[in-house]
């Protein structure tokens, strides 16, 4: 079976020390993502793990073409996203949605939850009536564990965990094939983060979703991922099935990362 997503030799560099005061002659280019290639199969969870500044968020955003890569290719459903424009790009984009880290910054505080969740429909299914959009929104909210009353309320009335559920509902309302989740639980309390991880797992089964899961946390990634790619300095230094990477890491940096995770002693029973 051909992969859902193929990333080939993706690269992005920025000018270091740029800005209005920069001395053009002296500026250097800083490579944020350096020749990254991988494939994600339909229905799997592919995790990209790395420390801050490793380029994982830049990589995720290039795949959605929220950042334009310098070079490379992103093959999704048979076409190269980087070569598309206009209507063709929009048609592919509805198949790929994003869940963000900060549930406080990623929801417009002046929009009602119903408008937030249904907003993708106004772009991609413009012919739907408002009543139909709200009905779809209510259905999606129920599916992520919020009741219909949420439609008419504002984001500030919800806790962090509930807001993340709203963000998930918004991402799934178009029934995308690929969901890019950038640190979806790192802003949440442990007890609530586990709820969101379980919800993501359930939704994956129900809607046959493929996840590209970006995180700094190996323990979090372990819970969902089928494959892990470890990123450092813009490069993928190790990629493999989750069990293999955790049990037999081949790269020294992966071993360092694993060794740095503070482990909780496990009770013999419970």
């Amino acid at each position, binding site marked *: 079976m051909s992969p859902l997503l193929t990333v080939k030799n993706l690269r992005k560099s920025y000018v270091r020390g740029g800005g209005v005061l920069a001395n053009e002659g002296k500026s250097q280019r800083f490579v944020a993502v350096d020749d990254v290639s991988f494939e994600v199969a339909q229905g799997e969870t592919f995790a990209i793990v790395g*420390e*801050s500044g490793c380029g994982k968020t830049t990589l995720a955003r290039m795949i959605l073409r929220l950042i334009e890569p310098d070079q490379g290719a992103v093959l999704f459903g048979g076409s190269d996203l980087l070569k598309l424009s206009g209507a063709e790009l929009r048609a592919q984009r509805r198949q790929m949605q994003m869940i963000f880290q900060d549930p406080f910054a990623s929801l417009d505080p002046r929009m009602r939850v119903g408008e937030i969740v249904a907003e993708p429909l106004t772009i991609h299914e413009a012919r739907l009536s408002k009543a139909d959009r709200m009905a779809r929104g209510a259905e999606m909210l129920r599916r992520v564990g919020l009741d219909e009353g949420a439609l008419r309320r504002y984001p500030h009335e919800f*806790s*962090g*965990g*509930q807001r993340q559920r709203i963000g998930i509902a918004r991402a799934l309302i178009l029934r995308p094939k690929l969901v890019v989740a950038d640190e979806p639980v790192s802003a949440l*309390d*442990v*007890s*609530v*983060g*586990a*709820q969101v*991880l*379980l919800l993501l797992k359930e939704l994956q089964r129900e809607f046959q979703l493929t996840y590209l899961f970006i995180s*700094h*946390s*190996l*323990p*979090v990634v*372990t*819970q969902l991922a089928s494959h892990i790619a470890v990123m450092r300095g813009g490069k993928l230094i190790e990629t493999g099935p*989750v*069990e293999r990477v*955790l049990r037999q890491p081949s790269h020294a940096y992966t071993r*360092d*990362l*694993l*060794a*740095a*995770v*503070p*482990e*909780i*002693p*496990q*009770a*013999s029973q*419970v």
Partner: protein
Amino acid sequence: MTPSINHRRKSCGDARCCDYDLDVSDLLRIGHLTVQLATAAGWVTPVNDVSLRLAPGETLGLVGESGSGKTMLSLALMGLLPPGGKVGGEIWLGSDGTARGNQKKEEPNAETQRIAEAEERNLVGLREEEWRGVRGREIAMIFQEPMTSLNPVMRIGAQIEEAILAHEPKIGGDALQLRLLTAMEHAALPEPETRAQQFPHQLSGGLRQRAMIAMALAPKPRLLIADEPTTALDVTVQKQILELLDRLRRELELALLLITHDLGVVAKVADRVAVMYAGRIVEEGPVRKVLTFPQHPYTQGLLAASPTLEKRALKPIPGSVPQLTDLPAGCAFAPRCSFRRGECDKAVPEFRQPEPDHGARCVLI
């Protein structure tokens, strides 16, 4: 064994607060500490009847989720509560090393007892001028995000010197320089002479946290409060900072109060752990016992919800952390608890200790 200390307040029968048989050597004893704050929605109690103790050279982990009151507790220990906050209960800060050292093993004699009594102070009710001799000098604190705690337009060395001069204004040039370098060496800041001349933005997150630690330790405090000191750092840097704190605790005989939401961090460095929920300590005991044989359903729930490197079925705790303005009459965890029964909703459970060093606030015990 030590009635001379006990007589100053009425005994409440709570072993963590009033049983001094074991802990004459404690540096910090918090008894029934309560903090109340006025909010738009009325008075809330972010710290409610908290009793804890901490000895020199010991690390106590304080674990809780957002809104549990762990940061308010630490601010109360520093006398830094928001204006209008009300504090009840006691915070006894012990005498310094002279009285402490020889009391550890042997029976305290009249002399050491007298010193301990003379120098032990209740921080609750101190006036602002008195706080200045305690805050930073005897109790220091480091925070989650070193970038927001450091002054961006001041060189690192000058900021550390400022911390020393605040408490010892007469210290001279050479002595000051020596103290600066010692503090930076304690914090294991590489190339201290160079770093002292740099500004915070020139340092990485890990080095900035080391600079904060140097600043906190420069006035030679005996108690260090670390509030989520590694939450903003990468795991590999977190490991180094935790190892540094642990070494400093040992070498300087610091009492370390480590506030965190991460049970893994607690497991790595703490001797004992106190779990806080909705303003109260719901469980306290030695780290290994609490993490492997948790007594309180909340602690059990946190452990079951914490991701580890094992792929396993995570069990989230249903619901969310309660608002302090809207706490139930009984146990605050009851609405999320799978063992809830009638009596849970009637009154807040007592703190019970089935073992002398391990207890919890739950009717099941």
